[in-house]
């Protein structure tokens, strides 16, 4: 189990992701240079666009909120060695759950009742959409990767069918529900800040960000402090040992997938309750898939996931600025940069482990070489 040249933890968790991101940025810079733009200028625009411009930080955090939820979803499943590719579909169904609750009750309940109910519904719908593939894996041996991918398509079809049909607001052309009443709106952070007399630029950042951070704490408690988390990790690391221990492996798989799906489903509260205030077609727009990269980069740990989410949030927001400022850098170019980051921090995540281990080994342990001849 031990790697040949074990990296110290701080290097594995801190240094390696940093090197990966830098490598991706260097390669991106080369691409930018090839199309004739100045990569340093582009970099500056991205950084400013993500953090400096008025309201940009709010946008970055708003995107990060989505990534935190979907990243946590992938991470929780991964602790049971389940590869949940279905975050996209689970988030989509989460939007259905939240939407249905709001449509039914937004004129009946006050915000304090309605919003928690909608959050529970989004998590619940996502949980069911995760638990079904979990059940199929646990009881029928259908591979979770295949079934969760199929469930993404199923979710997309169901949503088109409903939003273009039963749930479509009467007398409207676009496939979306009617707007909810103000009771269903999660407050924007800038509104809250303004209420306390703080000046803050407008952005879509809303209270979901706080919910996302709470979810991080919850996941940490679940995985490393709870009996269930113990069972999840035991199942993930060694099914044989879990069986020996009397841990009901199938049940653990189903529960884990339900929790994972629930977290993905909660992404919907940021989009539906926080920003759109109605359920629209395709609001998940790939956040579920990016969650896989976020979890991978964050080493399946909530703290890592927050950091990775910030990075991806900054990329999304800064990328949009890039698109804006340079005529030659298009939306597709920004996607390419994101792709490179996913490639280097996901697919090639461990590329620099060995070289770094050698370098650190040479730096940290004073080594007396065996090479010089003796006597």
């Amino acid at each position, binding site marked *: 189990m*031990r790697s*040949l040249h074990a990296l110290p933890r701080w290097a594995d968790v801190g240094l390696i992701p940093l090197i990966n991101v830098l490598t991706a940025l260097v390669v991106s810079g080369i691409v930018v240079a090839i199309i004739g733009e100045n990569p340093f200028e582009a970099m500056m625009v991205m950084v400013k666009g993500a953090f400096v411009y008025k309201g940009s930080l709010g946008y970055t955090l708003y995107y990060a909120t989505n990534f935190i939820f979907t990243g946590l979803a992938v991470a929780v499943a991964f602790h049971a060695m389940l590869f949940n590719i279905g975050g996209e579909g689970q988030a989509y169904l989460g939007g259905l759950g939240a939407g249905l609750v709001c449509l039914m009750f937004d004129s009946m309940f006050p915000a304090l009742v309605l919003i928690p109910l909608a959050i529970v519904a989004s998590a619940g719908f996502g949980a069911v959409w995760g638990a079904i593939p979990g059940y199929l894996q646990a009881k029928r041996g259908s591979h979770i990767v295949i079934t969760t991918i199929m469930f993404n398509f199923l979710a997309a079809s169901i949503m088109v069918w409903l939003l273009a049909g039963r749930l479509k607001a009467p007398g409207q052309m676009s496939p979306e529900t009617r707007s909810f009443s103000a009771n269903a709106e999660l407050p924007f952070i800038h509104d809250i800040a303004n209420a306390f007399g703080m000046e803050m630029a407008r952005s879509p950042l809303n209270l979901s960000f706080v919910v996302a951070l709470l979810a991080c704490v919850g996941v940490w408690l679940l995985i490393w402090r709870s*009996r269930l988390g113990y069972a999840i990790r035991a199942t993930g690391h060694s099914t044989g*040992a879990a069986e020996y221990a009397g841990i009901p492996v199938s049940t653990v798989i189903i529960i884990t997938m339900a929790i994972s799906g629930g977290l993905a489903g909660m992404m919907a509260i940021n989009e539906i309750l926080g920003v759109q205030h109605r359920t629209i077609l395709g609001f998940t727009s790939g956040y579920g898939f990016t969650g896989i990269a976020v979890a991978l980069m964050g080493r399946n740990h909530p703290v890592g996931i927050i950091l990775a989410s910030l990075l991806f949030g900054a990329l999304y927001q800064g990328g949009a600025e890039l698109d804006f400022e340079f005529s030659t850098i298009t939306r597709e170019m920004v996607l390419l940069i994101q792709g490179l980051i996913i490639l280097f921090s996901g697919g090639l995540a461990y590329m620099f482990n060995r070289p770094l281990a050698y370098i650190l080994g040479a730096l940290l342990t004073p080594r007396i070489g*065996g090479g010089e001849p*003796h006597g």
Partner: protein
Amino acid sequence: MANGDSAPPLAIKLSAINKSFGDVHANRNVNLEVMSGHIHGIIGENGAGKSTLVSILYGFYSADSGQISINGQTTTIRSSADAIYKGIGMVHQHFMLVPNFSVLENVMLGHEGSLSIETGAKKARKVLNKLSQDFGLAVDPDMIVENLPVGLQQRVEILKALFRGAEILILDEPTGVLTPQETEQLFEILRALRKKGVTILLITHKLKEIIAITDDVSVMRGGEMVAHLETTRTSPAELAELMVGRKVLLEVDHTPATPGEPVLQAQDLCLTTMSGINQLKDISLVLRAGEIVGIAGVSGNGQSELLDVLSGITAPTSGFFQVGTSNITAQQPSNPARLRALGVAHVPEDRHKRGIILPFSAAESMILGFSGAHHQNSGWWLSPSRLEADCAKRMQDFDIRPPIPSLASANFSGGNQQKIVLAREISTQPKLLLVGQPTRGVDIGAIEFIHKQLIALRNAGCAILLISVELDEIMSLSDRILVMNNGQIVGELERDNADEKRLGLMMAGITTDEGVAISQRRVRS
């Protein structure tokens, strides 16, 4: 090599090797001289630093300081590829073979020699045949490795090393998985290799093997070399004392048992696979409080399945067994958690697969199977500080080293991992203890300790079912011995009537009249 010295050439010379992992000084100024063409044993307790030392020699780790010379030449070994290049081959305790490849494919893996597998295979086959002949290592090159018995798989490992031009062969606990007969065959091979000038470094914890096969022996203790001896001039008792640092009891202090009430009764237990293979057939047995019943048998004759059924991991396909007042049948299966609550403890055969979880901390492995019940009053939560405090206490009671509860289970030596399992299972004061291979891959100091614990537990009134492939262990611990062959119990012997020869015959499926008579006797409940 022609350095003009009159002394015989040294195949390996290690001088002042040091290696630390964090605070653990695994090797401290270790010197070793291995004469060319000798079989050199390294013996030591778990955690004595044997594995670290050979890992340095094989390029897995680099030493913090010190010098390595191979065949008189000072050198550095950067990787295992480098070690192979320098003529060092290694046979690992756990085989490194591709199970669904043929022998030939396994041997040439990584040394295909050309772009086309065909031409490479042709050459490799020639070399392989020559090696087989030269060293008496007969293996059919076209057999699929997973279909070979363990002894032959090990032979493939040796061939692999020789194929890569190894002149120095390191064997790490090579007999852990072998039957007595296979061990004898291995030794014959080693003697043949020695005759051809191959230098062999044998890492083991078994004194018997050191005496039987080696020319020289080095003893390690606590990361240091404590002695280099000629094998003919030493004795098992002296070696044991050097290893442990104190006098060791090689024989178990076994007093007659006083069996009490039946604790476990099994009647006609059968386990049939989906494809219709009978893994267990009509197993009936009674286990009483305060006795140790040993199950002897060549491994793979149903012992593992019997343990799985009795511990609740697998449900029997027919028959039943009774623990206390609980009846477990095919229709009403149980599970390990429920049986544990009934007082059944289980030390599994394979601690890596079942007994502990390697990436978990020792404290976490220490509650495997009890994660639901441990400190029940803390509800849904587990408190790491409490787990570690409990673990630290058990580590002290069972002398588990290093006594660091937060250390990953994988970083403990085999014997200490086994002690973690044993500490966990014994601490519940079970009524029935199922034990599989309690001392597999465990050194002599730990064996003595584990055997003492088992006897003490028996004396305290626990019923123990002991499954082991080590006949010595079965004979020295058991009050009664059952013999399994092909999924059936083929005979029963009282402790005093058991000898290696009779047991050996029964294990091979040749039953005496007496044995047959007993196996036909049914237990009435």
